[in-house]
């Protein structure tokens, strides 16, 4: 079992938040907060100071920003923020943009537990 990490999940879809929580807990980690929009995400990050964030790229702009903007905001607030981007958008150019914006790993959808575990290991090494 790896060193347990405190994780913040940012996703506007409750089904994905539930699936991710289950997977992360199975992998031995603790979900310290969930956020469904950008405002709640930034608030939860500053309050919880999680070890790792999982971020949905297709985040609904209800809270004022999409996933890529939230990634940039998180990295602006904390240059050491470790963010794993999760998306069905597996385009090579999008992955490059996401990496340039500071994400430390990318997980494609449908989410597989092995891929998530590999991304967590990568994020931990950063």
């Amino acid at each position: 079992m790896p060193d347990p990490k405190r994780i913040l999940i940012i996703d506007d879809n409750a089904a994905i938040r539930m699936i991710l929580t289950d997977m992360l807990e199975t992998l031995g980690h603790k979900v310290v907060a969930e956020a469904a929009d950008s405002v709640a995400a930034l608030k939860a990050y500053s309050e919880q100071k999680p070890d790792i964030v999982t971020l949905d790229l297709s985040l609904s702009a209800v809270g004022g920003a999409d996933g890529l903007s939230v990634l940039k905001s998180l990295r602006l607030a904390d240059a050491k923020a470790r963010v794993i981007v999760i998306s069905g958008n597996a385009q090579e150019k999008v992955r490059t943009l996401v990496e340039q914006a500071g994400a430390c790993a990318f997980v494609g959808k449908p989410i597989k537990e092995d891929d998530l575990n590999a991304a967590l290991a990568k994020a931990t090494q950063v």
Partner: protein
Amino acid sequence: MMNADPGEEALLRLIEDGVSSSATALAEVSKTNWTTQTVSINADGVESIRSRMASDPKSYYGSYVSMPGATFLMMVPQDRGASLAKAFLGERSVRHGASAPREAECISEIANIVVHAIVNSLAGACDEPFFLSAPQMVLDKKSSLLSVALEKLQSTGESYAVMAYVHLSSDKLSSDCTVLLFLSAAFHERLLQSLS
């Protein structure tokens, strides 16, 4: 449909590749096989399809996803929503009981994955990144859902030039899944240029 134009034929192949990836993703998230029944481009006019859909009295979950120059609509029957959500969540649907997410949220996520598979194929041809909006869910008759999709594209000042129709089915879930792609004239032109 006979596509005499090589560009249109290449576009149809590109969409077929995307649909094949979609069917694979759909199988993965619903834990059962899906068969592609139809993939066509402009085979029938919108009015012809709307008229055919008008005879269907059932309600459907319609998920709208868009990006500049394109609108996508995925429709699955409301009466199959519970079994799709259950398949999507797996044993979590039992473990979480009443607190499990509603079926609309599960179907919205399925739409996100299915449409992305098609868009990833289009993006590969254009060699540029495409970002999709988060899915918006509406419950209505198929013909009404189709009208809203057209209105969404028109509200951006564009009108559709190409409509692709995709129909998949799953025997095990006794369900079908229809995906409509509306591409604007400008986006269609960009795709054809990239394909040439």
